């Protein structure tokens, strides 16, 4: 995968949760995952790297039938609608989490390339 952020040797890879937060919703066998940038300046970075194709690949084990990305730049957010990844959904799946409520946290581990200077400004979990 070519890296659109690759303009220098100062790039580092960080998990998406350092750039954004999000929540999963479900309707039938369709999952929607919102990805909301922590700040407006991070939105274009996410927009360039978190494409429909990249998200489809990230969820490959769940065999998505279709991934549609809706951008909402006015609130620095994107909404991914991922069809066919819930093993039938809340009434059919054998998963403990048949709603797929955990799936936003699967996507929030997606690796994103950012400039080192930006990385230094990103929120992070405590490291012990």
């Amino acid at each position, binding site marked *: 995968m070519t890296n659109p952020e690759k303009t220098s040797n100062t790039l580092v890879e960080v998990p998406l949760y350092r750039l954004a937060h999000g929540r999963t919703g479900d309707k039938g066998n369709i999952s929607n995952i919102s990805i909301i940038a922590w700040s407006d300046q991070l939105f274009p970075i996410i927009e360039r790297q978190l494409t429909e194709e990249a998200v489809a690949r990230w969820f490959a084990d769940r*065999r998505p039938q279709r991934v549609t990305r809706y951008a909402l730049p006015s609130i620095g957010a994107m909404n991914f609608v991922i069809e066919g990844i819930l093993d039938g959904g809340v009434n059919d799946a054998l998963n403990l989490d048949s709603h797929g409520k955990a799936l936003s946290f699967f996507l929030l581990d997606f690796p994103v390339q950012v400039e080192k200077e930006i990385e230094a400004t990103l929120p992070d*979990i405590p490291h012990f």
Partner: protein
Amino acid sequence: METFKIGCAAGFSGDRVDGVGPVVKSLIDSGGHTLIFETLAERTLALAQLTRNRDPDAGYEPLLEDMLRPCLADCLHHNISIVSNFGQANPPSAARHIARLAREMGLRAPRIAVLAGDRLEGPDVMEYLSRELPGEIDSNRIVCINAYQGAEEIAQALQAGADVVVAGRVSDPSLVVGPARAHFGWGANDWQSLAIATMAGHLLECGTQVTGGYFAVPGLKDIPGMHDLGFPLAEITKDGQITISKPAGTGGLVNARTVKEQLLYEVHNPAAYLTPDVTADISQVEVQDLGGDRVQVRGIRGWPRPEQLKVNAFMRGGWLAEAEISYAGVQAEARARLAADILRKRLGPELRMRVDLIGSISVFADDAGSMLDAHPPSASRDIRLRVAAVHDDRHIAEKLLKEMNALYTCGPAGGGGVRTSLKPRLNSVSALIPRELAPASWSFLA
């Protein structure tokens, strides 16, 4: 009457029932108008229908009395209307229960409106759905078919003076659209206004999910006072601004982030959020943090409502068998994987089984096990093996439970803490149906 004020005290059946006090106090202090309870997730209704089948007086929200006892006197006294889908599969019985409760509490008799028309029966509907969903509708297995009704009947009932509106299946945001329409006198085709009220309803319908519930990640986004989350309040101005807040002195947080997460919750195309009332468009929405747990939402647009109504059909779906056992200490995961392998061999191809290694890989994985198969064995020293399978024949499903129990003596070393469960399963399918096949109505409880 320039601003409509509404609060929500439940976001699903089974929500906390002690959040209502501060919501009602805020509504009283601010001259508020309506209190809603949302208690009807997709599956809740079918479960309620099964309950009603066993007991013709049941099938409405089991916590109805716990929800209303703390607030009914105040709401009646201060003319705060109560609107809810807590009627579930039996709105008339829920209404009678409320009337009884008011008598018991020595209150004036509330005017209770009962909505009808969401439950669909009869050959026309079956024929239509069988055509729309070929091969998916098995009339022998049907538990119930329900249409998502809109705000029209709620608004009419309130305008006729209802103190309490008891609905079954209505679209969740309609619980707010109905009262807002009654308050402002909007027409049924005032799309812009209906869209604004719809999104206010969407923000309220999951209760604390907009006030800091379902949001916290320690270290990344912390929420104060989660043991005492405030339930949400909304103000809608005549010119179309929504302000979301929560009662003073409660836990939780309302900021731009909590509101944005809920704004997109269960939304597909943001330019076309479809309800029975309107097509709401939030593709250009703006969210502004006003500080002090107040957030303003602007820029919502509205377009004509969809021609058809959404219906869910629920069918009996066999038996879900689930079983768990724990392994801890050296080779814990290896022992859990061996146990799963033993179960697979014992059950054979008759019962397709899902495997979870809780503590290593579970909810992220798919039912077919492709992620589990690719997952390298971990050195985790505390694994709970969980297996699940579904079968039409109860006795075959039960084999999973028996084989799990047998692992106490016939399985790997040190397995303990077996728990098993066998539950009837419900399957669902959705379709769109012409409105004339699902006429809605309402009446006052006699």
